[in-house]
């Protein structure tokens, strides 16, 4: 029972934040509502026995990525006191496409005959053993990718001839 209460609260926070992300007028508010959504998702991760991922989500995402986005927002042009998010184009058509996608996914989830199964307990230790065992090579490749992204971002941002 308490699980359901927690789940509904987290779902309201997450989806409410997501709706504000796509509807807020000020670009800074858009980024801050994204932080709310990401924190709600971290709550879901904690409910799903993924404590390590929840911590990563809070530290890396709501800590790092949101700060990065705020810097990017403040670096681009501002008009007057606030930074407008630019409004929306074709909201009706976009809404139809998004609703159709979500409804189709929902239909597949509800009617697809998913095995509910019982919830297993997953220890953080299991994740570490997978990352340093069978997935060690992809894990190292990932660090090369992050290095490449960092170098690429610096090269792009330092260009003078743009």
């Amino acid at each position, binding site marked *: 029972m308490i699980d*359901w209460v927690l789940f509904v609260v987290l779902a309201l926070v997450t989806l409410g934040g997501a709706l504000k*992300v796509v509807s807020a007028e000020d*670009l800074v508010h858009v980024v801050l509502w994204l932080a709310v959504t990401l924190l709600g998702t971290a709550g879901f991760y904690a409910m799903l026995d*993924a404590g390590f991922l929840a911590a*990563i989500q809070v530290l890396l995402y709501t800590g790092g990525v949101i700060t990065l*986005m705020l810097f990017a927002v403040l670096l*681009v042009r501002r008009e007057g006191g606030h930074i407008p998010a630019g409004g929306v184009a074709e909201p009706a058509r976009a809404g139809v496409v*998004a609703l159709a996608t979500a409804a189709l*996914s929902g239909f597949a989830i509800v009617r697809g005959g998913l095995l509910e199964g019982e919830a297993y307990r997953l220890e953080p230790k299991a994740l570490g053993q997978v990352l340093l065992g069978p997935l060690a090579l992809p894990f190292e490749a990932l660090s090369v990718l992050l290095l490449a992204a*960092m170098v690429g971002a610096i090269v792009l941002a330092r260009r003078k001839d743009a």
Partner: protein
Amino acid sequence: MMGPGLSAYLLVAAAMFGVGLYGVLSRRNLVAIVVSVELMANAANLNLVAFSRFGGHPWGQALALFGLALTVAEVVVGLALVVLAARSHTSLDVDAMSSLKG
């Protein structure tokens, strides 16, 4: 009484994906589009973690960790491109960026 099952989490993720898709399609500002893409990636990660829990296998969590790192790399490069575009264009409105239009 049982707690929320697999499909409850998948439904929340599907709704989040739909909202993100709406943002990508309807927003006109580049930064707002990047933020909406984040929503969609976040929904995919939630799916992976839910499958991992109800399938009883830690590989789903490992894949979600990879997904997180990939999204971070995407944001870093994407925002660098946004800053570059802001320097060379007067506005970040994607409808105004038509210099390649035939």
